[in-house]
Each structure stands twice: as structure tokens, then as C-alpha cells.
């Protein structure tokens, strides 16, 4: 019990809320790494997923690729890249990007692929060009699934950004790694609480976004006469 009390104490200590090692700074770093990671992963995975989902070509490859990427141990990549590239921002971010790609990629791909062929057919029959079909029909209809994948990726990244502290970067992981080094479990627990709160907040924001951009027509079946 005292562990939780100590963690609470850590969190409420005003000294921990200022300075270069304070919680706000760590939060900022954490969010910064996460956003950077997600941005890179989105730029890579979304277009690829859209293309494969739309053309139906290479679906097997994408599923296999996502599976293989998913099995890559982030810790291993982190250490490998660091050894090869030295200290710095890029090695950990690269490792995290590889972590974030599979959910985004397979979410995008399978979201698009799951759009009813009849619907795509209808779109083409109305005279939509391929890109109009993709952007006006497939993407809007697949959006809930695509955003679901992005949400998953974001959650994973937020939780995993903690291990960039294993090498030398900041973020909330610092509290974890430093706490671990000196067996200060209350600090680790406090870090968990912070990460969880951050993740929940991010998840809530993404869920809201998901709700806002998802057409009500894809949700409701309830209120028909």
C-alpha cells in the first residue's frame, strides 16, 4: 500500500513539476517522440495500405509484412540501431516507427479491403474515377477501421516510447529506467500512472476524432422506422 502512497507523493511533490527533469518536460518529450513516430509511420503506412487495399494487389504481402514487423522486438531494434548509428534521436524513433507501422498498415489495408465490393461497383458505375472511388467511397466507409488501427498504433507507441529512455533519451520512460536503476518502485509506479493517463487522454482524443469523422450512417441502424 505504501508503494502507492509513495507514488502519489512523488506525483504531488511540486519539485517534480518544474525544471528540465520535471514531469511537464518529460510529458512534453514523451508526446514529442510519439507524435514524431506516428507522423513518420502514417506517411509510410497509410498510402501503402490504401494502395494495396484499393487495388487488391499484394494483400498477402502486406499481411505477411505486418506480421513480420510486429514480431520485431523493439528493444532489439533499439539496441541494434543505437550500436550502428550511435546515440541520437533517430535510432529510437526508427525502432518505434517499425512498431507503429503494422497496426496502421493492416488497419488501413483491411479496412479498405472490407468495403463491400458491391459498393465499390456502385461507385464505379456512377462514373467515379478510381481516385474518386477511393477518396469518396472507400476511405469514408473504411474510416472507422483505419482510425481504429491508428488508435492502436498510438497506444502502443505511447506505451513503448518509455523504452527510448533505456538508451539516453528523455520522456516518461526516464522515470522508469532511472527508477529501476535505483530500485525506486514508487517512481516507476508514478511513471506508469502518467503514461496511462497520457494514453487514456490520447485515446479519448482519437476516439472523439473517430466519432467526429465517422459518418453517422456507418453507425446507426437503430432509429429506423
Amino acid at each position: 500500500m505504501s508503494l502507492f502512497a509513495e507514488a502519489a507523493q512523488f506525483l504531488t511533490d511540486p519539485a517534480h513539476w518544474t525544471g528540465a527533469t520535471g514531469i511537464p518536460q518529460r510529458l512534453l518529450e514523451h508526446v514529442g517522440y510519439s507524435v514524431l513516430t506516428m507522423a513518420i509511420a502514417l506517411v509510410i503506412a497509410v498510402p501503402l495500405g490504401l494502395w494495396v487495399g484499393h487495388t487488391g494487389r499484394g494483400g498477402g504481402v502486406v499481411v505477411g509484412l505486418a506480421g513480420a514487423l510486429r514480431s520485431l522486438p523493439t528493444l532489439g531494434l533499439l539496441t541494434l540501431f543505437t550500436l550502428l548509428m550511435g546515440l541520437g534521436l533517430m535510432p529510437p524513433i526508427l525502432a518505434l516507427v517499425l512498431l507503429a507501422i503494422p497496426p496502421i498498415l493492416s488497419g488501413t489495408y483491411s479496412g479498405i479491403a472490407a468495403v463491400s465490393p458491391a459498393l465499390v461497383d456502385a461507385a464505379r458505375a456512377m462514373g467515379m474515377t478510381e481516385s474518386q472511388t477511393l477518396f469518396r467511397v472507400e476511405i469514408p466507409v473504411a474510416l472507422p477501421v483505419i482510425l481504429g488501427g491508428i488508435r492502436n498504433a498510438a497506444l502502443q507507441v505511447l506505451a513503448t516510447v518509455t523504452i527510448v529512455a533505456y538508451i539516453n533519451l528523455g520522456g516518461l520512460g526516464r522515470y522508469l529506467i532511472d527508477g529501476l536503476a535505483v530500485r525506486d518502485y514508487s517512481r516507476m509506479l508514478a511513471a506508469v500512472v502518467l503514461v496511462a493517463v497520457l494514453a487514456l487522454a490520447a485515446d479519448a482524443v482519437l476516439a472523439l476524432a473517430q466519432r467526429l469523422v465517422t459518418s453517422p450512417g456507418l453507425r446507426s441502424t437503430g432509429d429506423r422506422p
Partner: protein
Amino acid sequence: GGGSDPLADKNDDASGGSSDTVTVGSADFPESQIVAELYAGVLRDAGVKVETKPGIGAREAYVGAVKDGSVDVVPDYSGNLLLFADKKAEAASSGEIMKALPDALKSQDLSVLDASKAEDKDALVVTQATADKYGLKTVADLSSSCGELVMAGPPEFQERSYGTSGLKQKYDCSFKSFQPINDGGGPLTVQALTKGDAQVADIFTTTPAIQDEKLVVLEDPKNNFIAQQVLPLTAPDRLPKEAVDALNQFSPKLTTQDLIDLNRKVSGDEQQNPADAAKQWLADHGYDKAS
């Protein structure tokens, strides 16, 4: 307690007081594994049946393992062991530490054997260029330039008594910033130093890179970094007599330079595994029946 751990229970049967097999454990970094292999070789040479359990983890883990009997002996470092057993201990020199240790350990039902000469302690290290630029020979020389320098070291350096606070207290030195690197003073820390990401680093004295990269170890006149002699950690009456004797005879033979050389073999380009490196040393030192 570990009673619910099925794996720990299994090991209880295989080792411990009732059995005549001695289990040698090690922490999860290469030097500890090397020394553990040395212990194992020495014991085998003395006719003791040995099992090894390398890479148990951090101190808390292997100390726990010794306590619960899943491991009988494990190499450790005098100063840090004392601080682990007694957080408020103030002893710093090797003599003081060796005096304080047995009492501090007794309460935990642990004991140590004789310490070796070999020592692997924290030290502040700079490149030759930095040393020249700021005229550094000892840590005390840093005090005027501290504020301009970035220091690299393991994350716990900021928290330890000998760490950031100790430097400030004893040498009035506060670095511009601290860069935590979690490789135990390994290649990344050295890299940070050589690439200029940091100017001062906390690197263990047995790191071969100190010699290889021609780094300068700053002297520590005020004994900020406490002594860290290599010694076997065990529990009272755990080891058979011949084992205790063999280890006590071995310890004086091991030197700091031995550790540096062994480390170089394991972590350097040779990439030997700890057991092979240890085997070579044992053979060179007349332990014929070590394997």
C-alpha cells in the same frame, strides 16, 4: 517470498546446503559473468561439483537468489554491496568497507569471502584533449570548468551518494547537464565521450576502452568513489569448506589488469564468451582441472 515461483522451487532441489553441487551465479553484465566463470573453474579445480547460472540480473535479483538458495555464490563488488546492505553506510576506503561489510550482511543472512585486489569502480574519465584543454588531472581540477561540461553516465549516477550530489559536496562540481546512458559505462558512453556529446563520463575502471582510446581517468583524492573490490557473495555455511578455501586462495591472484584484459576479450573485437575467456585465464594460472 518466492514460494510461488515454480522455477525457483525446482532449483532449490538442485542446489543449496543439502546438495553437494555448488551453483555459481552472476549478474547480467559481462564482467560479472567472467568472474563467475573464474569462480566456477577454481571450484572445479578444487574438486567441487559446479553448476553455473549466469546473467541472473541486477543486484537485487542475484542477492535474492543467494538468499533463497537458488544460487550459492556470486561475484560482487564490495562498495556497492555495502551500500545495498546499508544505505546509510559512510565507509569509502577498501579497508573501511571490508570491515563494515560482514556486519551489514549478517542481518540479511549473507556473507562474503576474501576480497581480491581487482577493483572495478566508478571513475570520472575525460579524453586526452579535454584533459589538456582544461588542465585536468584530478576531479578537483574540474571545479572551475564543471559548469561548461556535459557529463555522461548511467542513470543512477544522478541518485547515488557518490554521484551528482557527491561531486557537488566533495568537489563543488555541478555539470552543465547530465546525459544518462544505460549501457553500464559501455561502448555508448565511451562513444559519447569520443564524439564530444559529453566531455566527462562515469566509466568503470576495468573498461578496456580507457586504455584503448587513451582516455584519462581523473584521480579521486577525496575518495568520492568508494572502493569496489571484487569478492564472492554467499550465505553463511552455504559453501563446503574446500570451496571456501579455493575461492579465498583465488581472490588474491586476480588483478584489475586481469579484469581489463578479460573484458577486452569478451567485449572487444574478439567477442569471446565469458566462459572461454575465463578458461584461458585459469589455464594460464595453473588451474589445470578447471574444466
